[in-house]
């Protein structure tokens, strides 16, 4: 067991996503409590006190973001749920959308009240079909039952939620470009300043939160910030949904209390590695976070049940980040050169092309590694990859340029010898394995 459950706290059945099931679990009572007994700023204060950090990747304190909006300034405000879960290896929001869409809707209604947002959007990636159908059905149920729309629960509070389907671009998961996509313009990430809480959707103050972050709000408001702080670790309160994939026996979505031992999650909860191979490395939070060698994290073999603790600070100390919670497990015997090639192909294809370092750099890095894989690498290619990666560090409009660089440098830092070997021998030290060897 991975500790207290904030989101995965019910049994998933064929009907557990419906309104009836949600009401049976006590659903929408928090919204009623908020509308009838709390002021908008009380809700925001609870979020601030809970210490919850964004679950989308950047781990920015969610309460601080909300405080950027003054609900009484008379302007239109927007609350947007980012359900464009596009970070490779990440599929945890999908669990919420598929199995508990009302948790998100109730939380958004609470958020809309706190932020004085008359209109809210859920931006869901186009490839999510069942999640979208369930979400759309849930929105209809919520309207029919009077939890959305006008005169909610007999009060004079009114708010609407629109579900907006994306068309399959990675960059649309970036909060500001997502807003452009909703507005109907080309989805280019926007430069800051201005911050989105100053000028976001349709030039109005806007809060964009990840689905998981938002969905946690009703729990926090219901149980109180103290209860939330009591879970997880001191620096990283609460739980996180982790989507574990790659070379593990039981891939899937796991809710863990922050501070849970990494080794136990992978070797026990996830059933370890097929063929009982040791773990070579783990990408902890989607491919944009640097890879962590298993030995360095103390999670290499089934005997390593502790290792680095899964909280934001500890993973950062291990040289990476919990990112989006998309954990990719890499077994011993995998070729890291080919892995990087696949990752760079993705970045190259998904760079929006707006800013110079990322537009040109991702393609350049992809071509270099492609050449190495084809057996035509040069010793100086490794330095070239570093130079390009560094030139993207903090110099791009959105985080994608940085991410491509971090991912590349992460692999080069720890597995440089595999690249040297490949370049020298014109072949992979691990037969180019990407699938779990021997499984």
């Amino acid at each position, binding site marked *: 067991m991975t500790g207290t459950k904030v989101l995965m706290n019910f049994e998933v059945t064929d009907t557990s996503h419906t309104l009836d099931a949600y009401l049976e679990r006590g659903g929408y009572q928090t919204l009623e409590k908020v509308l009838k007994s709390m002021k908008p700023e009380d809700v925001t204060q609870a979020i601030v006190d809970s210490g919850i950090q964004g679950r989308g990747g950047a781990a920015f304190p969610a309460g601080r973001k909300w405080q950027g909006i003054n609900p009484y300034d008379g302007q239109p405000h927007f609350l947007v749920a980012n359900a464009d879960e596009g970070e490779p290896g990440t599929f945890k929001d999908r669990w919420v959308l598929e199995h508990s869409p009302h948790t998100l809707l109730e939380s958004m209604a609470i958020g809309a009240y706190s932020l004085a947002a008359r209109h809210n959007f859920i931006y869901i990636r186009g490839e999510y079909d069942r999640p979208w159908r369930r979400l759309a059905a849930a929105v209809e149920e919520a309207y029919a039952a009077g939890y959305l729309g006008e005169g909610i629960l007999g009060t004079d509070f009114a708010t609407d939620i629109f579900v907006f389907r994306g068309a399959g671009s990675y960059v649309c998961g970036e909060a500001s470009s997502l807003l452009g996509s909703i507005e109907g313009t080309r989805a280019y990430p926007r430069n800051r300043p201005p911050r989105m809480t100053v000028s976001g959707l349709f030039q109005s103050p806007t809060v964009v939160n990840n689905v998981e972050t938002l969905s946690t709000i009703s729990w926090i408001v219901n149980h109180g910030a103290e209860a939330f702080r009591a879970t997880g670790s001191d620096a990283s309160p609460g739980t996180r949904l982790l989507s574990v994939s790659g070379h593990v026996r039981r891939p899937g979505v796991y809710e863990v209390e922050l501070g849970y031992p990494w080794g136990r999650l992978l070797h026990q909860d996830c059933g370890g590695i097929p063929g009982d191979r040791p773990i070579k490395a783990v990408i902890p939070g989607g491919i944009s976070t640097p890879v962590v060698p298993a030995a360095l994290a103390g999670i290499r073999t089934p005997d390593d049940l502790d290792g680095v603790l899964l909280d934001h600070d500890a993973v950062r100390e291990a040289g990476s980040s919990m990112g989006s919670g998309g954990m990719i497990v890499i077994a011993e015997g995998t070729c890291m050169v080919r892995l990087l090639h696949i990752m760079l192909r993705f970045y*190259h294809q*998904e*760079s929006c*092309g707006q*800013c110079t370092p990322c537009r040109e*750099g991702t*393609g*350049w890095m992809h*071509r270099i590694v492609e050449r190495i894989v084809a057996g035509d690498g040069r010793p100086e290619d490794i330095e070239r990859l570093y130079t390009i990666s560094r030139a993207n560090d903090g*110099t791009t409009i959105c985080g994608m340029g940085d991410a491509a660089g971090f991912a590349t440098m992460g692999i080069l830092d720890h597995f440089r010898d595999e690249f040297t070997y490949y370049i020298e021998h014109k072949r992979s030290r691990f037969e180019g394995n990407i699938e779990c060897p021997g499984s």
Partner: protein
Amino acid sequence: MPGIVIDGRELEAEGGQTVMQVALAHDIPIPAFCWHPALSIAGNCRVCMVEVEGRGLALACNLPIYDGLKVHTDTEAVRNQRKLTLQFLTLNHPVDCGICDKAGECLLQDYHYAHNGSPSTSIDPKVHATKHYSLGSRIVLDNERCILCSRCVRFTREVSGSNVLGIKHRGDTSLVRPAEGRSLDDDPYSDNVIDICPVGALLSRAFLHQSRVWYLTTTPSVCPGCARGCTIDVWHRKPEWRLQAVATHRNHTIARVTPHENPAVNGPWICNKGRDLAALVERPRALEPMVKGEVVAMDQALEAARQAIAGAQRPLALVSSWGSNEELDAFKEHLAPRFSCAVKEDHRQQPNEPGDDHLLLRADKNPNTTRARALFGETPAAVPEGTDLVLVWGEGFDFDTIPDGVATIVLGAFDAPENGLAAVFVPLSIHTERAGHFTNFEGVVSAFAPCFPPPATVADAETVFPQLAPQGATS
């Protein structure tokens, strides 16, 4: 007033300005591809990075100043990042300056030499793209040279409003493209994108491969295309680069026209008609003075005209709205007392030609109606009963409206059938051959200078008018 320090200099600035604006105002150079003073901030080229004390690199173009802001434009980190950005920008750029019209006035060239200077560190093949993509009858696009700064896109959205251009696809395969079913022919201001394109991606069909820009020089002038009177630069061959053997006509013809930035009239823009100034002024000329169709010397023509004017009972003068302030003043002084005068529209709005619009264009297609009307009133340009002599200065008059038997004196620059039928014809210089001023519809006066010497056989209207005055008539 916020205090800001750039490179150790304490500078005056206004709240709301960006670092780029303050630097520009104090002549501190910061390279910029995507930033343009008349367009919104895109912040995509990343070449303008400066170092902010305590914060690291930041975009000068998108950084609002604040009290205590300290910026350095030339640190190791800044130089390094500029160099890398230029490496990126030339990574897939063909560097075909040798056949590129922009060479010599290209920001990418300039910045390469100023901030990079090293050959590409890449050994991988370049990404290829369309080399000659038609954006209509006036402009072709070389996508390989495009650095995707989006200036052209923002221009059609924010300035001309035609919304023709956008960017499609993504990453290093992004392409500037017109919207479906559109072309830049829909945009009467399209050619401005050629100027603001920092590289040689947007090319003028008219100017394509016509000249290297360093063989050319500019003369400040005023567009006569409409009542806006945009200030322009007329580009023509430098004297020291005169062609000696082939195509010598190019020594005295217009190579191209660009806007001469002028906040009081046209800002940094002009319309496409202004670009086509050559079509307005480089038409077949009338070069010989004539009396009743017989070629004569200028003296004889002027003498014949003077006599006709002196002998007329009820002479009418149709004054040109293309005349300069100086010419109109000379006419007023020397000839107006002798004539009844009316202002003539030399050029009229053609079908399919835009009239008044949101940006520059005016329906009045004459540059100096304002001054002409101020001097000669609003009388319509028609021939009243009893007129026995009509002096027609300039173009655009329908000679069929002159009753039979009424003599005409024609003063004009261009070849026309009426010239030979007139009692006297006096050939004049055109506005690219003389100096003067036009007064635009808002009363703003702008000066033009001669670009070429006039042909030997023609005269300037300003010197002709005093000579036509009957002796004693003006005193």
